[in-house]
C-alpha cells in the first residue's frame, strides 16, 4: 500500500479516498452513496452521478457475488479507491476473491457464469457504457482489480442525448 502511494504525483491529485468494506450486499448501496458524495464538490450533472453510481454498483456487485461467491462473510473485503485529478475521476474496485480465468470472455456482453442467479451478463458492458475508460486485471485465486475513469462536470457544455 505505502509503496503505491509514495509513487503517486500528489501535485496532480486534488482529493483521494480509500474504502474498505465487508463483501455483503448491504454495502452495494453504501459504495454508490460514497462515490456520489465524493464527486459532489465537482458539481456533476444528475446524468454523470447516475453513470458513476451504476458503474460502481456493477463492479461492487461482481466482487460480492462472483469474487466472493455470494457467501456474505463480513471478513471478505472489498477495497474501493477514488481519486480526483481536477475533473477526472478514477475509481478502483478490488477484491481478493476467486479471480477471472478468461477476462476477454468475461467482458463480452451477455456472458455470465451465474445464469441461475439471474445475472444478465451486462455488468462489464454497463461499466464500459457509463464510464470513459475501463481496465480489468485479474489472477485466478488472487482476485480482481477493476479500474474506471470518467471526466466529471462537463456541465452545461454537453447536452444529454435522449
Amino acid at each position, binding site marked *: 500500500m505505502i509503496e503505491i502511494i509514495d509513487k503517486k504525483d500528489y501535485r496532480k491529485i486534488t482529493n483521494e479516498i480509500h474504502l474498505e468494506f465487508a463483501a455483503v*450486499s448491504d454495502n452495494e448501496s453504501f459504495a454508490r452513496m460514497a462515490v456520489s458524495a465524493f464527486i459532489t464538490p465537482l458539481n456533476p450533472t444528475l446524468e454523470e452521478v*447516475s453513470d458513476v453510481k*451504476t458503474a460502481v454498483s456493477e463492479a461492487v*456487485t461482481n466482487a460480492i457475488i462472483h469474487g466472493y461467491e455470494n457467501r456474505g462473510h463480513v471478513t471478505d473485503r472489498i477495497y474501493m479507491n477514488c481519486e480526483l485529478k481536477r475533473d477526472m475521476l478514477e475509481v478502483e474496485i478490488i477484491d481478493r476473491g476467486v479471480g477471472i480465468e478468461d477476462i476477454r470472455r468475461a467482458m463480452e456482453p451477455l456472458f455470465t457464469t451465474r445464469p441461475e442467479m439471474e445475472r*444478465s451478463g451486462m*455488468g462489464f458492458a*454497463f461499466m464500459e457504457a457509463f464510464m470513459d475508460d475501463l481496465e480489468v486485471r485479474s489472477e485466478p485465486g488472487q482476485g480482481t482489480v477493476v479500474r474506471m475513469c470518467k471526466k466529471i462536470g462537463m456541465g452545461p457544455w454537453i447536452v444529454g442525448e435522449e
Partner: protein
Amino acid sequence: MDEEFRIVDNYLMIRMPTEIDHHKSVNISARADRYILSKKVENVVFDFEHTTFMDSSGIGIIVGRYKKISCFGGKVYAVHTDSRIRRILLLAGVENIVEIME
C-alpha cells in the same frame, strides 16, 4: 403487506423500489414468482414510477420473469420509464421482450 404487488385481471403489477440493485432484486424476484406460480397471472407489469436508480440486476429481474411467463403466452411490460431507465433497457437489448412505455 404486499402493497408493491397487485393483481388486476390476469396482470401482476409490480411497483419497483427507489433503488434496484442486486441486494433488492433477490427479494423482488422471489415475491413475484410466488404470485406467478400461485395466482392466475399471465402478464407482468413493472412500474418504475418511483425508481431513481437501476443497475443490471434490474435486467435480470425482467428477463427472469419473462422466461417464466412467456412459454404460456404471457407478456412483460415496463411502465413509467424515465429516459435513464429506457437507456438501460435499450443498452441491455431487452426491447424485443419487454413492451416499454413512458
